[in-house]
């Protein structure tokens, strides 16, 4: 017996796809429960939405609700597309779109609450140039704070 309940964090990066493929292999040989999530609770989101409004520059005119809707739509689309990878192999997966927590916050909370025993993440996210800074740091924070094993896929 290896892992019973796996949590996988995804974004639109290629590393995420490789992470999904690893999870699919694990699932095929071990029959474990898999939950896949994508978070749109990125720390820069409120910033993007509020900066133009705060500065009073009318021409930007970004509507926070519209922006959020777009994020949601893109997030759900990503989850649906990636779910296909599981469906193609006839494997079950639960998907979740996380609105108000960063990936590391969500992982930290949910691993304990729902008893996951493995977290899988890609080593670099979509924020390519800044990845050392951004999703690299997600991986780092997860390793520091998660209460279960963490697999980082390259």
């Amino acid at each position, binding site marked *: 017996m290896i892992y019973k309940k796996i949590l996988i964090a995804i974004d639109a990066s290629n590393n995420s796809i490789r992470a999904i493929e690893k999870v699919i292999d*694990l699932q095929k040989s071990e029959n474990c429960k898999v939950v896949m999530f994508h978070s749109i609770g990125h720390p820069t989101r409120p910033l993007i939405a509020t900066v133009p409004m705060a500065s009073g520059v009318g021409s930007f005119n970004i509507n926070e609700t519209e922006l959020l809707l777009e994020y949601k739509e893109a997030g759900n689309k990503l989850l649906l597309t990636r779910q296909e990878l599981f469906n193609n192999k006839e494997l079950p997966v639960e998907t979740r779109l996380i609105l108000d927590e960063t990936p590391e916050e969500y992982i930290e909370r949910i691993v304990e609450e729902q008893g996951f025993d493995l977290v899988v993440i890609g080593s670099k996210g979509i924020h390519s140039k800044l990845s050392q800074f951004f999703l690299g740091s997600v991986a*780092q924070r997860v390793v*520091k704070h998660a209460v279960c094993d963490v697999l980082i896929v390259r």
Partner: protein
Amino acid sequence: MIIIYKKILLAIDGSLHANNAAEQVAEFQKMWESKVVMFHSVKHHKIPTGMFPVESFPVELYRDMEEASKKAGELLLVETQEIFNQKGLSVETRLIEEDEPEVYIRKIVEKENFDLVVLGSKGRHSKLKEILLGTVSTKVLKSAPCDVLIVR
């Protein structure tokens, strides 16, 4: 049976989490019959000799300390090897003297084609050292060219 990882490099340091890592790797090996290499680095036990004026440097004491940490390292490798032997598995062990764990991992993973590195999430270093230097796991995470599993 799908073999996910064929060649696994396991880093140990005598911490509880490293022991759990060895247990987990043994499970993998049972399932996938992966080749496993386990190593322990004693590099960080070395004292940078340049810190002392040559004439006052206690050469004998320094050599004794180095010998002691090497012996302790060898013992640790043998003890951890037992985890595998008891399950009828075998591992190759290596005592690394010249490289820090993260440096050795970076060097060897590509040279010898490992596809997974496994280590414990918290080593034996003090809190202060973690803050100042960052943990080994963080450094490995940044530099390893293959998948990394951090075990708790």
